[in-house]
């Protein structure tokens, strides 16, 4: 058994310029931020993000100019920043292609991809501009010619249900991604993942992607996880690489481990409305630091305040909304 262990730097190197990418987590929870920061340090370019929903990971990568295409349904920082200012700026400037689906459509696209089906049928969002043919942005950009294996020939298709007369169905194309980058509580050295709490769309992300990189708070003995197989979330053979990186999701939160660092996100949101602001923020918090340097800079008092109470699975110290 060859080891699946790699470093943060190696993890980021696996994601090459132009790769299509997805992430674990949900909005401001369990995002693989340490790898995202490393991608920015390595000045990755031309990424195609296909996300069930976006969050700080999107905003950081978009702000740093790493992203050419974003397919998803939402980006923001929840309570700590009401929309994605970096994405908004770059869309306004025509620097990024945004393809809008609904949340359920994105989820069903990943479910189809994970099941090896080329599409899924759904009845969500009928009658909205999500299905406006004039708003097919990848099509407008001439990218639906079949040359990019990650971009389907159509944004969606309508068909009528032939079986039960259920009416108009939207066929949404399976998501296809090169790399899924995950951030979880525990992974075994052979790749078995145990997510605690909500698993969001992580199982589908891992199964859909050609390469899955799992960054975990801790790498634990496989044998420990395999004692209770029905508690595990992702099987060993779907995971190609594992990285141990405590607090790797910061400033996003992790069930049972630490809360969202709302002050950090507010600061990010407030300061990165402009490109100059983003560059300044990145200079302060990303460039010239490694992950340990980043943690040192955050400091103990901040991290201890965020640390989850193990009985509650969230921090009883952190004042919410701050």
């Amino acid at each position, binding site marked *: 058994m060859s080891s699946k262990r790699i470093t943060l730097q190696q993890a980021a190197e696996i994601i090459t310029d132009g790769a299509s990418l997805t992430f674990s987590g949900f909005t401001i*929870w369990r995002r693989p931020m340490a790898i995202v920061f490393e991608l920015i340090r390595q000045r990755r370019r031309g990424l195609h993000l296909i996300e069930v929903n976006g969050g700080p990971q999107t905003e950081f990568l978009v702000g740093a100019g790493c992203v050419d295409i974003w397919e998803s349904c939402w980006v923001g920082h929840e309570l700590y920043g009401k929309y994605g200012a970096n994405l908004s700026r770059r869309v306004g400037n025509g620097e990024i292609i945004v393809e809008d689906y609904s949340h359920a459509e994105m989820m069903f696209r990943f479910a189809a991809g994970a099941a090896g089906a080329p599409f899924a049928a759904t009845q969500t969002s009928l009658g909205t*501009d999500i299905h406006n043919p004039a708003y097919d942005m990848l099509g407008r950009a001439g990218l639906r010619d079949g040359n990019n294996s990650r971009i389907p020939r159509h944004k969606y298709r309508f068909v009528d249900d032939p079986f039960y007369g259920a009416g108009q169905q939207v066929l949404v194309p399976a998501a296809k991604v090169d790399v899924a980058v995950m951030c979880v509580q525990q992974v075994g050295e052979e790749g078995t993942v145990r997510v605690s709490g909500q698993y*969001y769309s992580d*199982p589908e992300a891992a199964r859909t992607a050609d390469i899955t990189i799992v960054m975990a708070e801790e790498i634990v003995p496989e044998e420990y996880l395999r004692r209770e197989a029905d508690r595990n979330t992702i099987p060993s053979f779907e995971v190609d690489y594992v990285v141990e990186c405590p607090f790797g999701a910061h400033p996003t939160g992790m069930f049972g481990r630490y809360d969202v660092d709302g002050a950090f996100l507010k600061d990010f949101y407030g300061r990165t409305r402009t490109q100059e602001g983003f560059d300044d923020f990145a200079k302060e918090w990303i460039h010239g630091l490694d992950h340990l340097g980043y943690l040192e800079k955050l400091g103990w008092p901040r991290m201890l305040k965020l640390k989850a109470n193990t009985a509650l699975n969230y921090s009883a110290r952190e004042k919410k909304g701050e």
Partner: protein
Amino acid sequence: MGKEYAAPGEYGLADLLCCAASREVGDNEVVFAGTGLPMVAIMLAQKTHAPSLKLIFEAGTLDGRPPEIPTSVGDARCEMGASRASGLYDAFSIAQRGYVDLGFLGGAEVDQYGNVNTTCIGDYLNPELRLTGSGGNPDINSFARRTVFIMVHEKRRFVKNVSYITSPGWRVKRWPEGDFVPRRSLYGAAYRGGPSAVISTAGVFRFDRESGRMYLDTCHPGKTPREIRELCQFDLDISRVAGETEPPTQEELHLIHEVLDPDQIFIPRVKQE
């Protein structure tokens, strides 16, 4: 025990919205909640007239009973006391399968048919301002039997035509033509209902069953129907006004500020000493 209403000045607009939203919830209903004020409203209903409602959070928490307000639906707080914690595929499958009675949603713009925009302001192809995007707004609005929108009332938000239909109202676009058709005709077997109310900072609005057009149901205390009509770019039907929006009770105010949101994350206190 009769209801003891709070007097004007004892509550704020957010309190009023929260209580009005809470009253939309029936007991035993399955309710799909987004982040923010709707979460407080639903938990308020859970602690008052709807103890058996089932709360679903989009991120994958099913029938949760959080003891304190989560900051978002991905929050670890969602899962306290929940029946099951899983993921989005579960949440949206449950919604599409038809389990959801009521969903609470928000929006940046709304038209008279209840079409809502959360995607962009201005031309989609060249937006003045890109917003968050759809999130689960169209999904919940497609599958729940009823949806309630909670919105800030400004004339620029109650518009003739929204910049982008993110979430489907009672008359929606049929593609590829793009002409407006009744919601029911498009949804076919998936039709279960649609927007049932808009609760704005000015009043409570409902929709005519036949025409699908919005009308003013109740005015918030201190607002007149004419004032409210002036706050809409479309011709608001004010012929059916039922009176004033019911104010919060003392019990509700206590629950909101002492139990549910003591840190004033979503609902500020009106009186600070």
